[in-house]
Every structure is written in structure tokens, then in C-alpha cells.
């Protein structure tokens, strides 16, 4: 079966390691510890994980926004965008990439927007800096962008300040700022977490529409499996600073291979669960808690919480093993027969 050659990836991340020096002599926090993935042109890649897994640090590392000190991207990490090595770019070249080719939006629109400038000014800024438009042309561009992101009365709103707008509108403004230069890649770090669910639906729909219109790739970082299921083409699951599973969205939800993914999917309360399932019963829950980045467990980092763990898991850290296009960092892929006999764990310390 021949498949058409895949277009070369827009973004290639290989073995990214970002460490932070902590004050207290608790050692180095290895927030991102060997992460690799690709983002293909035009696709939506979902990066899923809970707090402490390293997903935000990963996204900040791509644009080299990590404060150094206390953080630093280790040598040996490789980030390539459209064939150029991001980590070796000169500051001037890096600035030409940020906001222009790769744009980023954040979780909290109130703190990401500058309260003393109008939204028009902030949107126009990217156009002025990267495309060298005149102020008048940039302002027209800003109004166009406001229209594109669905803000009513854009000619009026362009002169409003962030505090005059609601959370949903501010997030749209952020999206407008990010897209003004038609970037090829949009990194969205928890863009809807702080929003009400009806507004979240609006914003996700907007992102889908814009992605189709502008043909850009989106790297969507979130902890919400529902959001990922609805918007991502492929999913990367992160835990303890590593990628633990990678697959197409449909594959991941249908056949989760990593016990962490399995556990997460089982522990999310679901709207589509029938009343009998619920019956005031117990939600599945993953015992224990996420370990600290200064002290990742030996062997497989998930083993203290894993129902299947055996000796090999405690001793050897598994690499990403493949099962077709679906990869998972778990010894179960090498010894699938063990999947039928989960071992009861000793009661772990409760979070």
C-alpha cells in the first residue's frame, strides 16, 4: 500500500530538554526532558497533559521565551521551523519569526493584553513591526482583523481598551494580534481554559474557521480532553516532562495504549455517560499524584501510579515504542500479554 509522500513538517522538535535551576538546592527541575514531535502544515496538533507535565514550558521553548536564568534549553535539543534551526538564530532573525511566522496566544487574556494601550494599537503593532506598514495602513489592518475574528462594530472597538471588553472578546483580540501577519503556526496555550463554556465554544469554532481560511497549523495545548477530541487531528500526551503517547485523535480515544491516557480518559466525568453508568458510583481515578520535576521516579515515570507496573517498569525507562503510527512510552507495547493482568498497587500516599 503506497501512501503519498507526506509534506515535510512545518515544525520539528527533537529531544527538547528545558531545565530550571531551583533555589533551594532541591536540584534541577527537568521540566521538559526529551520531547520530540512534529507539526505538519495545516494540521491541528493537540498537546494534552495535567499541570506539571511540561506542556507550557515546551511551547515557550519553541519561541525561546524561557527566562534564562533560571531556565535553559539544554544543548542537544533541536527545534527546526521550515528547515531553519530556531535555537541557533540570531536575535534579529528570531524576532522576525516571532509574531510573524509563529504566533502565540495565552490563557489569560487580561494579563496578556497591555491595559494602557487600545486594542487597535496592540494589533497594529505586529503589522508595523513585521510588515512595516504605516500607522494608517496598520490601523486599517487592525479593523480588518477585528472583523475577521468576529468582533461587532470593529471601527468603534479598535479604539477600546482591554478593560472595556469581556473575557471572550479579549481572547478574540489576542487571536487577532496573533494572526495579523498570517503566521504559518499558531501556538495556543490553554486558550479557552479561563472562559465560560459557551464562550469557549465560540472561540474554538473561531479557531477552526480561521485555520481553514488561513491554512495555518495550530498547536493546541490543553488539559481538557473534550477540547482535544473536538479540534485536534493528532494528539501528543505528556506526563512528567516526556511524551508518553502520540497518535491521531481518533486512534487515541478509541485505543489508548498508555496506562496514563487510559486512566485520564476513564476518570473524566462525561456528559455522554448514561445515568446507569453513573448510578452514584465511583469515577475511575488514577491513584497518587504527579511527581515533582526535581525528582522524577526511576524507570518509567508513571510506574508508581500504574496498575500494570512490573519489575521492568521500575528499573528501565521505556523509550517510545511503536504500534503503527501510534506510539507510546510503555513496556506494555513490548509485552502486550501483561495488559490483561493489572496488579493491585499498594495504597499510595493520597494527593
Amino acid at each position: 500500500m503506497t501512501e503519498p509522500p507526506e509534506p515535510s513538517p512545518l515544525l520539528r522538535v527533537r529531544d527538547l530538554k528545558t531545565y530550571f535551576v531551583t533555589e533551594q538546592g532541591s536540584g534541577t527541575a527537568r521540566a521538559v526532558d526529551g520531547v520530540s514531535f512534529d507539526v505538519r502544515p495545516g494540521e491541528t496538533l493537540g498537546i494534552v497533559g495535567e499541570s506539571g507535565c511540561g506542556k507550557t514550558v515546551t511551547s515557550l521553548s519553541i519561541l525561546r521565551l524561557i527566562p534564562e536564568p533560571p531556565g535553559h534549553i539544554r544543548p542537544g535539543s533541536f527545534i527546526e521551523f521550515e528547515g531553519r534551526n530556531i535555537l541557533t538564530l540570531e536575535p534579529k532573525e528570531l524576532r522576525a519569526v516571532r509574531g510573524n511566522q509563529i504566533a502565540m496566544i495565552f490563557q489569560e487574556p487580561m494579563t496578556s493584553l497591555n491595559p494602557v494601550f487600545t486594542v487597535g494599537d496592540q494589533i497594529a503593532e505586529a503589522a508595523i513591526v513585521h510588515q512595516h506598514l504605516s500607522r494608517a495602513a496598520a490601523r486599517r489592518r487592525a479593523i480588518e482583523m477585528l472583523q475577521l475574528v468576529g468582533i461587532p462594530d470593529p471601527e468603534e472597538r479598535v479604539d477600546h481598551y482591554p478593560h472595556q471588553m469581556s473575557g471572550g472578546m479579549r481572547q478574540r483580540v489576542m487571536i487577532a494580534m496573533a494572526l495579523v501577519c498570517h503566521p504559518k503556526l499558531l501556538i495556543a496555550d490553554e486558550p479557552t481554559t479561563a472562559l465560560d463554556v459557551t464562550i469557549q465554544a465560540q472561540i474554538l469554532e473561531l479557531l477552526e474557521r480561521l485555520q481553514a481560511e488561513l491554512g495555518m497549523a495550530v498547536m493546541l495545548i490543553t488539559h481538557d480532553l473534550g477540547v482535544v477530541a473536538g479540534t485536534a487531528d493528532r494528539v501528543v500526551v505528556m506526563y512528567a516532562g516526556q511524551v508518553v503517547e502520540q497518535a491521531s485523535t481518533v486512534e487515541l480515544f478509541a485505543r489508548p495504549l498508555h496506562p496514563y491516557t487510559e486512566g485520564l480518559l476513564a476518570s473524566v466525568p462525561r456528559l455522554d455517560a448514561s445515568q446507569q453508568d453513573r448510578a452514584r458510583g465511583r469515577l475511575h481515578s488514577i491513584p497518587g499524584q504527579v511527581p515533582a520535576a526535581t525528582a522524577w521516579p526511576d524507570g518509567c515515570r508513571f510506574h508508581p501510579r500504574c496498575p500494570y507496573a512490573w519489575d521492568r517498569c521500575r528499573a528501565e525507562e521505556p523509550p517510545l515504542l511503536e504500534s503503527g503510527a501510534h506510539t507510546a512510552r510503555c513496556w506494555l507495547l513490548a509485552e502486550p500479554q501483561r495488559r490483561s493482568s493489572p496488579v493491585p498497587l499498594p495504597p499510595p500516599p493520597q494527593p
Partner: protein
Amino acid sequence: MHVPASPASRASPTLPTLLAVHDLVKHFPGERAWLGLGRPRNVVRAVDGVSFAIPPGQTLGLVGESGCGKSTTGRAILRLVEPDGGRVTLDGIDVLMLPPRELRALRRRMQIVFQDPYGSLNPRMTIRQMLAEPLVIHHIAAGADAERRIAALLEEVGLNTGMARSYPHELSGGQRQRVGIARALSVEPEFLVLDEPVSALDVSVQAQVLNLLVELQERRGLTYLFIAHDLAVVKHIADQVAVMYLGKIVERAPAGALYAAPRHPYTTSLLSAVPVPDPQAQRDRIVLAGDVPSPVHPPAGCPFHPRCPHPKKNERCRTEPPALREVAPGQLAACHFAEEPL
């Protein structure tokens, strides 16, 4: 213990009631004109006539988006903010009329667990001190007896008894939330207001804390008012659900009925907006236009009409506020077209 019969409370005529709320009102005045002596402008009508009843041992889920007044309702019931009108009865006792000393005694019977595990614990007190305080305030126990109770509480919420010596910043979010629950339980309440108790927790920890809450309810026979914005979480734990919008309840029904056949267009939109972790669940997402409105200037007529996607929306919706009325047995909705749901 006579709660006046109204369409809202006729919903469950035969079940006994532990907590009954009738027409609860809380307004927050904005600034006053005339140097502080005039009438307040920009009044925020946070809670604008809310009624419901919870039978003992059951859970009412109160859902809505930000600004709808659900948190204020929870606090008003406990008189952490003083309501401006309405009645609240706990086991027949009129909570709002109680003088301070009786109120303090009644506080043993109703408690609250907060959303923010980081802000709800005093950073300068050890866990032990936090759990001992209610025992001291209500003269429940002292000395060795108090120590025993504290240890028992910690165990009950799934914490290591050694944690009594720790400070909040040494614990994780899930652990702090468990401490908050233990603190609420220390006075042996019958009724708990749970104000978004799992919203600030990670997914895997949410499940653990939810399981704990269900277990505690069964073991102690607790009655819960579970305030949340996450409809999937509420579905898991609630017997009844009430949906709030701009300070009013727009739909109230047993959980099964509400999720299977919502009657109010807002409920339907809310349910369809929740992302489901199943890529193949093709749903017609109803995406509401416009923003969540501000409670300072609620629209005239039906508060939801500017965003309402109902095809039959008409002039009546713009001018006449719909009453919360029984549309199906046990199911109430405040919509002129509740008989023809979306």
C-alpha cells in the same frame, strides 16, 4: 415549618426538605450619586429571586456561567453575605431571621467548602490548628479528645495523619482541598455548600475528590448544594439540577430529566457547548452569539432573549419575563416555549 406553596416548591410535595430557599434576593449596590447619599446606581442584581428545596441526603447541582449568581446564592444561604430578601429554612428553622448567637449555633449544621485550595486555607496556620479551631469555637472537644477527632477527620478524607503538622504551602492542591473538606466536616454538619470544589483541580485529582465527596455523603447522610460550571461533573453527583442565568433559575429538574430532555434553550445550548472526549461524537453544536451579559443591566423581558437561538423567539420574549413553571412532572423551566424545546 411551613414553606409557602408556590409553583417552584410544589415540584416535590411529598419528600421532606432539609434546605428550602424561597425567592432569595441579593443585590450589590454600585456607587451612589450625591457623595454617597443618593440612590445607588449600577446595582448588580446578583441573585434575583431564586427558589429550590433539597431533601435530606440528596444533592442539588447549581450550574451556570460566570456572573450568574450561583456562588453568591451559596454564600447567601449561609449568610456569609446578607441576603436582601427571601426565606431560607434549614430543617424548618428560618436562617435569615436568626440573631447572632443562634446563628452561630446553627453554623454547626451547615458548612461550606470553597473552590480555591490555595486561598481557602490560612497560610499561617498548621493543618492541626485549622481543624482544632472549629472544635474550640463550638466547644466540641479539647485536649486529647480533640487530637483524636483531628486524626479521625484526616483519615476520613484520605490524608496521612502526619500532615497535621504541615502548613498549607507544603501540600498539593488536592490535599488542600481535602483539608478544606475535613474542616467543614469537623463540626458535624448536615448540609454542605460545595462552591466549585473541584474546578481548580487537575483532572485526575478531580476524580479522587469527587469520589470522596460521594462517599462522605453516603456515609454521613449529608445534603449537598453543589455549585459548578462543569455540567459533566454535576451530572455525576447531582440528584436535581438547577440552571442559573443572570441571577435567576431558568430550569430546574431531576438530573436524569434535565440531561436527557432539557426544556430551556439556555440549558440546551450549555449542554451542547460542553466538549465531549469522543472525537466521533458528532453533535450539532449550538454556538451562542454574543457575550455572557453583565448582571448590572439585564435585558428586559426574558433575560436570555438576546442570545436565544430558539426559532420561535418573538416580541413576547422581549417584553414579558417568563415565569418558572412546571412543564413536565417535576421539571420547571422559565421559557415561553418550554413545551417546544430546541
